[in-house]
């Protein structure tokens, strides 16, 4: 069963584009990344999935249930972590979590203590007094407490310090091992790379690619650095498959996605001193998809 499935999901805000014809399929027990620059439509997609806004056309389902028709039942099973968190004034952390738990008809359990310790949350503090990072930690607790089957995370580590980020990834990994499906949205690829198996790349409201993280890396895209004894003429590297070419005197750098042999043949004619061919960072692969703009 597909845990999350969108079919031609489209959202316009008046005339403004939100998302267009979005088709996504997230498998059971998968950690699925959703990556794109700010304004690409990530939050629009997520807000549509969790029922804050309604699609202009198209449809979507979570756990086989329609997001419009079965919104309440779906929300029982999802843990949603928004990128920015705001809570009611005048409540302690514990009161808020109790309030949240009562909506699920489940009392607070041992899980709370454990999570509060992991994330160093003081349950007796008043929410009004918390910094945004600490509010985020409360949101993490609240997201996991009712044992959701699906986690929907929107820029989840935004505002967390590196130690807390590491703990957060650890918890997500553990939940996933226990069968929880994760939908992880971020504009930072390295974050997604760390935890996801598959990733959808969204650009200007459309999904431009859905790839395995592993195959994305193996896309035959290489970063080439070379230094020579004499300045290299640009014409010598006018090869199909060369991208983002930068020539600075004796130093040359470019991305290459063509035949390795023809590259080596072209390079062999140059008076080279140093050559490195390495796997590019996901950021670079990402930029490659976006045609250099982000």
């Amino acid at each position: 069963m597909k845990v999350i499935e969108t079919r031609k999901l489209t959202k316009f805000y008046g005339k403004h584009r939100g998302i267009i014809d979005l088709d996504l399929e997230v498998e059971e027990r998968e950690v699925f990344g959703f990556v794109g620059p700010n304004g690409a439509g990530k939050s629009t997609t997520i807000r549509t999935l969790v029922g804050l806004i309604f699609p202009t056309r198209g449809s979507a389902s979570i756990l086989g249930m329609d997001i419009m028709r079965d919104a309440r039942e779906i929300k029982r099973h999802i843990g949603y972590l928004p990128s920015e968190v705001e809570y009611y004034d005048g409540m302690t952390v514990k009161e808020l979590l109790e309030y949240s738990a009562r909506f699920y008809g489940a009392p607070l359990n041992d899980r709370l203590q454990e999570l509060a310790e992991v994330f160093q949350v003081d349950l007796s503090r008043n929410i009004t007094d918390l910094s945004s990072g600490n509010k985020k930690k409360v949101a993490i607790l609240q997201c996991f407490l009712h044992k959701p089957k699906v986690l929907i995370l929107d820029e989840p580590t935004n505002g967390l310090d590196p130690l807390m980020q590491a703990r957060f990834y650890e918890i997500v990994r553990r939940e996933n091992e226990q069968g929880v499906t994760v939908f992880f949205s971020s504009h930072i690829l390295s974050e997604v790379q760390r935890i996801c198996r598959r990733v959808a790349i969204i650009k200007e409201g459309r999904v431009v690619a859905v790839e395995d993280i592993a195959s994305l890396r193996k896309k035959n895209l290489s970063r080439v650095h070379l230094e020579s004894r004499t300045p290299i003429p640009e014409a010598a590297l006018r090869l199909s498959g060369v991208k983002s070419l930068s020539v600075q005197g004796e130093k040359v750098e470019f991305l290459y996605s063509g035949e390795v042999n023809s590259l080596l043949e072209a390079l062999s004619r140059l008076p080279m001193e140093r050559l490195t061919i390495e796997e590019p960072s996901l950021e670079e692969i990402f930029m490659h998809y976006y045609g250099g703009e982000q």
Partner: protein
Amino acid sequence: MNWNLYFKELRRNRVRFIIWTSLLVIFIIFTVSVVPSILRDREQLETFLKVYPEAIKKVFGMDVESWSNPLGIYATYHGFYAYLLGGIFAITFGMEIISKEENRRTAEFLLTRPLTRSEVVASKTLAFFTYIFAFNVAIICAVLIGLTGFFGTNFDLKGVLSLGFFSLLFTSLFGALGLFISLLMKRGRSLVGVGTGLVLVTYIIDAFAKASEKVSFLRWVSPFKYGDIDVVRGFYGFEWWRLLFFLGLTALFILLTFALYRKKDIYV
């Protein structure tokens, strides 16, 4: 209906309720406490009323006959307290109870709990009407306690209860209007300003229409017309068209609130 949300709303709005209710109760007790001195000197009252222009007297319902009766004197002020101030309390409260979740960015939390949109509206609306009912009960209790304290049981109980009944209808209507228009307004607009303005405008329309024959037709557009009863002369106002006006419009605004909120995109 979600009781968790309902009780949280009661808790969250109790300060607003307590402040407004105690304010009006104090006003009412104070007003009733000066009634004996007005009644004591009828001659002075007549001279006092003579200096007022006819139009003003009509607007405020001041006439010698009404003012020779304790309830009559209070009823003159009731329009101001329960209708005007009560209306402002109701409309501003109604406008905030749903929309503050968006304005304070807590809607994202609330609407991602396992609730339907209708349950959100139902729970909040019920919490709202619980307070509106309690507010009117408190007002009428204050009137009853005040009148009993100063005049024993020598007043028209049915008159007091009909005043209370109409202020309940009145505040319910303005409250329901507040719920509805808050969903049409853009985030960040001054809800209190718009709400208070609406009540004042209908009040002023009513006052003008009462004062001048030429524009008297305008009274029909203001709820104040439909709540204008004359308990001193035994007119308790239980007429079908008045009840239809209040109950019909209140029900309409509540239904529209449900319909709009079910499809409303929530931005935080």
